[in-house]
């Protein structure tokens, strides 16, 4: 893939992340008092509302793609051997898939799982 495509991805996720993270910070400490925001009941209502749950999933995806693509850039600049570059590519893709999967599991279980005390 041409590097400019990956950089475009980096810039687009950057701008999306600025928007989504701002909303996330607002939700956690500005709109509601912090203690209320992180209370179990409030969190549950966020995960069980379709709009806010999808928001969290989008936040997850955007931030992790931006973060690991950024790490890839840094690692590329660190060493320039072919095996290193291949390793960085593989680890980047695996890391994005793995972490997004783990975060998505939290969102799905929180949205649909059985609530326990």
């Amino acid at each position, binding site marked *: 893939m*041409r590097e400019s495509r990956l950089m475009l991805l980096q810039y687009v996720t950057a701008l999306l992340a600025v928007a989504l993270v701002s909303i996330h910070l607002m939700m956690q400490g500005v709109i509601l008092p912090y203690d209320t925001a992180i209370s179990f009941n409030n969190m549950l209502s966020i995960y069980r509302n379709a709009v806010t749950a999808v928001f969290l999933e989008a936040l997850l995806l955007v931030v992790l793609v931006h973060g690991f693509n950024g790490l890839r850039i840094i690692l590329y*600049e660190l060493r320039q051997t072919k095996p290193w570059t291949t390793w960085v590519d593989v680890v980047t893709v695996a890391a994005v898939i793995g972490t997004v999967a783990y975060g998505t599991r939290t969102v799905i279980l929180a949205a649909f799982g059985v609530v326990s005390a």
Partner: protein
Amino acid sequence: MTDVRLLVQRFDPFKDEEPRLVEYKVPKREGMTVLDAILYARDYVDHSIALRFSCRQASCGSCGMKINGRPRLACYTQVDELAGEKVVAQPMENFAIIRDLVTDLGSFFEKHAEVVPQLVRSDLQEQEHPTSEYVMKPEELTRVLQFTYCIKCGLCTSSCPTVATDSEFPGPQALAQAYRYTADVRDEGGDGRIAILDTPHGIWRCHFAGSCSYVCPKGVDPALGIQLLKRHVMSGHAPRKAGEGSPTAKAGIPAHGPGSGSSSGG
């Protein structure tokens, strides 16, 4: 008369384990440049100091070195303009040391050559045997003019944080020259250069730290050119407006028609 405390980094990779700073006392005179001071030390104190210089007037680009922590031209830096009471001269960073203040610029010139720093025409016949003069309007010249002032001193590349670790990165000098030719209305080689630069160790390894523009002694402003080239790559458009700058030969305008009085640029 006050003395200048001149510290020169001495190092012969064939003999020495580590570089060391050697102090020389140099009688100061008005307007003395760092190059003057080093030459005094070489001429009157220690003939074995190795350095490279030629024009003594910021034109040849051979006296680049690290002076008091920052890449500068020794001939274009006066002792008086440096803060502190010492003058510390070391070889430019990120270039291999040949001896003392002399660095190996081989890969630097290779990288310059790799970005095809010359006017390219899609019609090879036309390129080798132009049918007429290529005319530039003054504003078209202005767009590339400052980038043509590069003297290939290497200061910008020495200052670049990406060059510090990425040996395949072309560096600010080469990238700025890639822009200089790609933005030239007489050139048709932009796509070829972009194919070379839109790669994992190409133009996108620049993160606009701007140190290149900060240290450039000739007002080339490499960081400006590089960001403009990024825009060009991202947008897929030529850095000039559509329809502008068709060479006279192509447009069928007589070579000495209106506007041909402007310079053909460097």
